[in-house]
């Protein structure tokens, strides 16, 4: 917090859909966030090991590790960037109830059904990060 410049909040977007990662990156970057993109759970896990993030926006249904598994792995990671409380916003196109229930045990900051309005996403992100900051 000693840096002169206001530190940009770092958001990791995990989605296998490239048009979405691009779109969300654009949207969030325009809103002043620092956006990182992982195209699947594996990548996200790797990136989380190297960097620390303030928020993960994660798709649930993905090839390989799904959203819930990915987040669990990230949160339970060890190392200097590990954050067991890392906030997450799940976004989903369609999920069965079981997965949704599982997701809810991870206490996500939000759960958005695609497609959603930009406003909804941005306000949810802002809200989450504000909360998180105040928690700090």
């Amino acid at each position, binding site marked *: 917090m000693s840096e002169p410049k206001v530190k940009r909040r770092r958001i990791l977007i995990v989605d296998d*859909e490239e*048009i*979405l990662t*691009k*779109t*969300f990156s*654009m*949207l969030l970057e*325009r809103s002043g966030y620092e956006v990182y993109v992982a195209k699947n759970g594996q990548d996200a896990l790797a990136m989380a090991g190297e960097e620390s993030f303030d928020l993960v926006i994660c798709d649930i*249904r993905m090839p390989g590790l799904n959203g819930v598994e990915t987040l669990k792995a990230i949160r339970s990671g060890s190392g200097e960037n590990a954050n067991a409380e890392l906030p997450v916003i799940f976004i989903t*196109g*369609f999920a*069965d*109830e079981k997965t949704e229930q599982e997701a809810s045990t991870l206490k996500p900051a939000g759960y958005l*059904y*695609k*497609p*959603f*309005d*930009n*406003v909804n*996403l941005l306000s949810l992100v802002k809200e989450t990060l504000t909360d998180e900051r105040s928690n700090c």
Partner: protein
Amino acid sequence: MAKLAGAVNLSIHSVPILIVSTIILFIGLFVLIQNRKSVSNTVFFLICLCVNLWLYGSAFLYPAPTPEAALRIYKSVTFLGVSFVATMVYLFSVVWLKLARSQKGYAALGLLGSLFFYLSGWTNRDSFPGMYHYFWGHYPHYGIVNVCFLVFFFGYFFAAFCNFAIAYRRESSLILKTQIKYIAVAFVISFMGSIDFLPKLVYWPVYPIGYFCVFIWIMTVAYAIVKYRVMDIETVIHKTLMWAVLSSLVFLPIAAGFFFFKELFIQMPPALSSVVGVAVFWGLMIYAKRIQPWIDHFFQRRKYDLERVLIKFNDNLVHLKGLSELVAYIMQTMRDVLYVDKVHVFLKSGNERRLVRVDAVKDGLSELSADETFIVWLEEHDDVVRVDFIDIDPRFEQITKQARDFFENLGIKVCVPLVLNGELMGLILLGQKLNLKIFRAPEILFLSELRHAVTIAFSNSIRLIEMQQSLRRWNEELEEKVKQRTRELEEAQKQLIQAEKLATIGTLAGGVAHEINNPLTAVLTNAQMLKMAPHTSEDVECIQLIEEGAKRCQLIVQKLMKYARKPVEEALLSEIDLSRVVESVLAFLRYQLEQENIKVSAVLSSSLDPVRGIGNELEQVVTNIVLNARDAIKSAKKTGIIAVKTYEQNGSVCASIEDDGVGIPEENLSKIFDPFFTTKDVGKGTGLGLAISYGIVEKHGGRIRVESEKAKGTRFTVELPKLQRAGNPV
């Protein structure tokens, strides 16, 4: 008379004539004493008397000592018979065939004619111009007057024959037909006797054989009387009388033979006479041993018949199963055995107190009340009743009038009750006998014995019919049940197929939704991002259109996802009053519907059992259906009614929503719950409303039924299972 007595002389030729004419007189008398009141019997006797006079006269005429004496005998005795015989035969045909009404004039004319010719024989010289010697005696010549008499004679004979021929052709009853046939044939034979007239006209040496023809005639008539009960003669003929008549047939020739050939016998050598004596003795023995029992049997055949009929009847009953077969057989037996003019058979109808006529002939009463006094009496006494006994039997004292009325109204003579275990099953009613005689004791006994077998046969037959009926009924019920089950099965199968189809579609829809969501999210997000940056107004409009389109896609996808979702969590379920669900939907929609000139009538039960479900989902179902109803009305006309009801039925809580709109064509009924099936204009409906509703209701363990008639309207019924409470009902 003294002259006549002096003229009496006999020759051997007279013997057969005397025998025959005596027999004829006997038979005539016999017929007469059977029923003196009967006109036909009397007329028959008069015929016999005429024939007898003719033959007796002839027997004395031929051997008369002088032609004058012979003519006197002919005029007084023989011609008296001859002149009346044809008229009598005609009269008999008129009386016996009951033609008196139309032919009495001719009959009277015939009698006057006969009288005229008889008297003219005495007064007119042209009747008998002279006598001549002929074979074995004197014989009169016929003059011109008697030639006219012969025309008259043949005319009336022919008329009688015509009466018989016409009656024979008209008669439908077989018995009567046979009677007429025999009588007619007999008279034709006797007509051959008129060959005796020939020598009276021209000299043609024909031996007088008239008596022989008449003998055959009388035997034929006698046979018809015995066998076919012609005229009013009871078939149980007085045995002694007939025995005497028949024995005389045998003994008279023998006696006459002895009388005339006694000289011959006396002169015979003793050995030969003893041989003749033994031969005669053996002849009599044979007669006594063989012929007499046969004759006895022949004339007692009636009694024998009744026993045989009873045995045969009992045997046959075993093989008769059908009611109509049985009735026909009973009627036939009664007719054949008792010669009654009608037989009515009444049988009790089920458990009702009435008797229904079951014989095929439909004249007279077709139904009797079992509560009639006389019928109740019959049921109690279980006895054959004949009309003649009503006045003399003390048992009828109290009900004489009712009993008489019963017999009179039905025109019957005998009533045979069929009683089984103290219960009257039916009645057999017999009319008059064709010979008008009363029923005799053996016949009543016969009926009395017959009725037990008949009663049991009817009882069996009715039971059989009842069993067949119940079997048929069971079959029908079973078939109906099978049909119903098949229908239910088909319905269940349809629902299963529908559910399966929807489940498949649900999975598919989930996949599709997911696939579409990503690009759609990209479109929407980017469109919104573009909107945030400054643009020309045209660009803004374009972007807005993209956003709008994307949002509509979003809506569709959201609905699809809702449809595809799996059963909800128990925690979300609550006790719901379906009436309140409907009420809240209507409260929300009523204003809108009324704006569109659609009236809503709601009959909502306030005491419905609760159902377990998700309130807003059920609201969605009702909303969907009501809005569909609105669309159905609006596409047909400007105004309409939506009738909403809630009620309970067969353990389910139901809500029915009925409109009077266009109705659903039958070919569409099976598709309306399919996702994306819509008949609405493009863009007006997604075709998901009913599919979602179906899914929701199914998830609640219920079902949606739809009934529709084209141009009349549609009714949707939502059925949800009642909430099963574990504890005591509140």
